[in-house]
């Protein structure tokens, strides 16, 4: 392995200007300031992707498959192409190069050519002078299909295919198998006093970003530019270069202001490729905006997951071994599913100190819209299973469920059995805070009322990129001169507030007001590379890269201020627009006079040594982990099975609060989305068609359904985070789902081992109990999966377990 470059995993310290100059605390960091884009968003001034238009723009409409599984025998586009106003028609033959979000899964074609694999898969694209003309023209296209038997469920996918596998070259319809064992699991179960097994199911769901996907491409002067509501412009840049066979230098991707991403805009999407190709062919701007129904077909949402978990524990509650199995319904494409598969097993040991751990996972292809990354990526499903399983294990042990968890918590500065490096860790503190605030231990005991507690862990950015490379994960350019300060970064603000974070850290380092810093982001033609807004990586990685760049300018300006004033650099105070005796502007002018144009760059990549070295070890490691705990208070009606959530307390180990407004907003969004998945959302199928392809039918909680939320912050000041900060985009989601289910058990005494919890499932569990059976609703068994033998991984030695 090559030695890491000097910028990888560098510790930049937890105070402004650490190690360089006098610092007397924060001036911008930690202040409750509104987001930079707040006013534009609330006044309607923000221009989203669909608001963009150029003279002569062509409208692109996609003809999609009405069949879940069928061979394409013939496509006749002649009549459509001859329609007045139609400028170009594309079929799969025009876009033969396959692509995908991750390097090892290149199974997508923008337009299907040989066969269709799900209802809604794009088959033909029409570009016309306006949308009505394009849409009418699609009706003149004749596609001759030979219908094949569809695969509709995980169980069905594990059987021999009825007609043919969904993809060539796979074993049946199995996309991915993984089997890993850390430590001696059999021995762990042998010494356990209590062993428990449970089966759980977690339904799939869509991201339901308010903004539907939209993209516009222009090809001019040999350069392609694509404006799109993408979360990962750099990855899209690479994909477009590959598919269109253009050099990277001829492609520019601009991520437009977002109306929400949540993982649904990470994968390169068919319409992005199609409008780019059409722009190259026609020389005119081409635009495509998806309808809500098309967003459900493009999907890449939460994987439905069937899970089996077995845990052994000593009488005192100490876990001795855990065995976790998962079968994921991946839908029709790979997407980021290889990563999803490993994520379902990675973080159990990052929460609990499990001495021996076996993980077996399977992802299958089905004829449904492709699943992919959604907030929490592969971890909400196992988190739900694990936390409810531990509640039940506590019942078996006659222990308090919180006490059981606490005696197994991971410790700060430790290494897990699967080689994850834990540094800062506030799991004890978030537990303490949420229990105290909610009064969990002294909650009222009446039938129908309950509280549930759960805890979770998440990573601050993927330790490894989506394509193998040793390059920085985030790069920042900083321009400082008599015209002002501009920070350039490829990071994409998808509503999480990353632009605001970049401005905050640069203002902090340069002693400026946040309004003094301009931010230019998410434009691969203007901004240095950032890998994208996914896996909670941006504050940690782009934040560190921005500090790195700003420190260089800070040092330069301090030198000028020292030289001019005759004082020593470390005697000078930076802040309130001053560098010691000089104003910021004077310091800049002095530096510019001496050095010419001023600019600085900063870079970040996670440090080496944060993972083990085994197949699958690249998924799970991050440079730091956050911890969250939640208590949910609700009433569940034993007559109807209806649930009314009164309040959610959520405590989060944020590392450091860079801006309480942003952190609070993320926590609210996480709680909302988790309640939605716990109680309502499901992307399900009936007659192999989407059951709920509209926002009226697809139920998600309304503003009037939202409970009160109490936000509790724990600052653990991570040694490597920007000023010690960690992620908050995904972590606080995780404990809420199991806490809801646990609270329902607290209220009614029955277990619903399947989310979403619907009224009907609660009544089914109550009915079962009334019949004298187990008061439970949920899956009965885990299917037979041909798991390969486990790769045995030696756990870290006790001597190296402390990091």
């Amino acid at each position, binding site marked *: 392995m090559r030695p890491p470059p000097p910028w990888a995993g560098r510790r930049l310290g937890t105070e402004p200007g650490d190690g360089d100059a006098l610092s007397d605390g924060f001036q911008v960091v930690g202040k409750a300031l509104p987001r930079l884009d707040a006013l534009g968003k609330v006044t309607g001034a923000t221009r989203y992707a669909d608001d963009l238009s150029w003279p002569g723009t062509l409208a692109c409409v996609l003809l999609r498959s009405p069949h879940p599984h069928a061979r394409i025998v013939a496509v006749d586009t002649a009549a459509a192409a001859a329609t007045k106003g139609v400028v170009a028609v594309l079929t799969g033959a025009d876009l033969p190069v396959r692509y995908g979000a991750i390097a090892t899964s290149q199974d997508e074609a923008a337009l299907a050519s040989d066969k269709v694999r799900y209802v809604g898969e794009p088959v033909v694209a029409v570009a016309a002078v306006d949308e*009505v003309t394009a849409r009418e023209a699609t009706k003149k296209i004749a596609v001759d299909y030979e219908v094949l038997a569809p695969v509709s469920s995980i169980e069905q996918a594990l059987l021999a295919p009825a007609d043919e596998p969904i993809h060539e070259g796979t074993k049946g319809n199995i996309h991915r198998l993984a089997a890993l064992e850390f430590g001696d699991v059999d021995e762990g179960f042998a010494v356990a006093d209590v062993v428990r097994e449970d089966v759980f199911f977690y339904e799939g769901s869509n991201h339901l970003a308010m903004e539907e996907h939209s993209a516009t491409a222009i090809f001019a002067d040999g350069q392609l530019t694509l404006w799109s509501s993408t979360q990962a412009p750099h990855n899209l840049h690479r994909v477009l270069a590959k598919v269109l066979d253009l050099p990277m230098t001829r492609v520019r991707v601009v991520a437009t202001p977002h109306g929400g991403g949540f993982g649904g805009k990470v994968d390169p999407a068919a319409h992005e490729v199609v409008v780019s190709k059409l722009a190259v062919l026609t020389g005119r701007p081409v635009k495509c905006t998806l309808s809500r129904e098309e967003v459900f077909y493009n999907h890449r949402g939460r994987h439905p997951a069937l899970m089996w978990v077995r845990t052994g524990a000593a009488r005192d509650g100490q876990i001795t071994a855990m065995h976790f199995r998962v079968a994921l319904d991946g839908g029709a494409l790979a997407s980021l599913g290889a990563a999803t598969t490993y994520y379902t097993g990675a973080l159990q040991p990052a929460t609990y100190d499990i001495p021996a751990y076996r993980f077996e996972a399977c992802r299958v292809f089905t004829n449904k819209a492709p699943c992919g990354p959604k907030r929490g990526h592969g971890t909400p499903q196992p988190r739900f299973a694990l936390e409810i399983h531990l509640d039940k294990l506590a019942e078996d042990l006659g222990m308090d469920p919180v006490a059981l968890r606490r005696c197994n918590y991971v410790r700060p500065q430790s290494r897990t059995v699967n080689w994850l490096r834990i540094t800062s860790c506030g799991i004890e503190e978030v537990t303490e805070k949420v229990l105290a605030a909610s009064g969990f231990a002294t909650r009222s005991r009446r039938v129908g009322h309950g509280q549930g507690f759960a805890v979770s862990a998440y990573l601050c950015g993927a330790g490894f990129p989506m394509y193998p490379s040793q390059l920085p994960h985030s790069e920042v350019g900083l321009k400082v001169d008599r015209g002002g300060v501009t920070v350039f970064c490829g990071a994409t603000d998808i509503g999480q507030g990353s632009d605001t974070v970049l401005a905050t850290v640069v203002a902090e380092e340069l002693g400026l007001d946040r309004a003094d810093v301009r931010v230019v982001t998410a434009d691969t033609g203007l901004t240095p590379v950032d890998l994208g807004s996914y896996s909670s990586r941006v504050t940690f990685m782009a934040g560190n890269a921005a500090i790195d760049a700003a420190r260089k300018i800070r040092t330069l300006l301090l030198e000028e201020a020292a030289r001019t004033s005759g004082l020593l650099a470390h005697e000078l105070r930076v802040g309130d627009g001053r560098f010691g005796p000089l104003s910021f502007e004077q310091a800049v002018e002095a530096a510019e006079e001496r050095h010419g144009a001023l600019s600085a760059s900063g870079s970040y990549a996670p440090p080496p040594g944060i993972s083990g070295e085994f197949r699958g070890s690249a998924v799970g490691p991050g440079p730091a982990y956050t911890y969250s705990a939640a208590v949910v208070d609700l009433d569940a009606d034993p*007559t109807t099975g209806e649930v009314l959530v009164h309040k959610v307390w959520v405590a989060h180990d944020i590392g450091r609060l860079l801006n309480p407004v942003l952190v609070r907003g993320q926590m609210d969004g996480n709680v909302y989305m988790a309640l939605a998945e716990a109680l309502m959302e499901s992307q399900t199928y009936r*007659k192999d068609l989407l059951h709920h392809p509209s926002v009226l*039918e697809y139920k998600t909680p*309304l503003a009037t359904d939202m409970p009160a939320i109490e936000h509790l912050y724990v600052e653990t000041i991570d040694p490597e985070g920007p000023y010690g900060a960690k992620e908050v985009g995904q972590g606080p989601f995780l404990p809420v789902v199991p806490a809801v289910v646990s609270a329902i058990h607290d209220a009614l005494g029955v277990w619903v081992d399947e989310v979403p919890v619907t009224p*009907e499932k609660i*009544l089914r569990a109550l009915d079962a109990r009334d019949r004298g059976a187990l008061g439970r609703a949920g899956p009965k068994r885990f299917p037979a999966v041909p798991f390969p033998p486990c790769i045995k991984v030696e756990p870290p030695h006790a001597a190296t377990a402390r990091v």
Partner: protein
Amino acid sequence: MLRLPAFEHLRAESVRDAAGMLADHGGTARLLAGGTDLLAKMKRRQVMPDALVGIGHLAPLREVRVAPSGAAELGAAVTLAEALADRRLAADQPGYLEAVGVVSSPALRNAGTIGGNLCVDTRCNYNDMTEEWRHAVGYCLKTGCGERCQVAASSPRCWAIFSSDTAPMAIALGATVVVWGAEGERELPLGTLYADDGKAHLQLGPAEILTALRLPARRGWRVAYEKLRRRSAVDFPLAGAAVALELDGDVVAACRLVLGAVASHPVELHDVAQALTGRRLDDEAIEEAATAGARLAKPLDNSDLNYVWRKRMVKVILERALRRAAGADRGRLR
């Protein structure tokens, strides 16, 4: 986004004018007041009228009149929000307003009209889908070229669900509606406006216009409307139970019970109401009435949530509506 198909917009100068315009188009024109039901269906290409006849602005359809007795007449184009804000109605027609208040959301109540809600199309989640989705499923009996019902394949009829919240309550209150047609005005009991057919649930001629809702004086009556839905707003009813009764001491002197969203028309529980009349409204009577009433509900798998659960809930909401009308505890979460 889904776009509206092309259509001609006609602005009627009077109800007579509007009826003429409808007649001129021979069934290819539709009335437009609030548009909250119609325009969404047009976007999904479920209905493709050549022309929309605007009547929302016509003064006679915009009036609310309340007599000293408490009897009320509401013009069909009065918005749901306007009805809710009317203090006279609040005092004299609280049962009707309770149902109005649980229709959809504030934004849609600002646009939707009281006549529109009475005439709201029946719903089915095999039909309230886009053209592309319905093409993929093979269409159904209600619209387009489908040859079979998707939810009950062997059925010769359409099972789309009656989805008005206000109609069951208004029927329970003994409401009538005024219909304007070529032969002039006629007044009919609201219940007789509806037919048990999901495809054609309104007994109105192609050029007839519902112009007003008349609510009789019901001072002193006990009323309750219970709506079953998944969320606290927006959703159409999964079932609705309307109760209006007059007590003499604790004995039921008069009573009307109507279920919504359990069939293609509002289901009036005549026999159950008759059995209650003359009885003391105690727990036993309520339980019996709710059990008997729920038997008439026949939900199918063409709406939200599990239909067996919905059937089971009909008894619960009917019981809750009766208990509330009787003055007992509400006993539910929201």
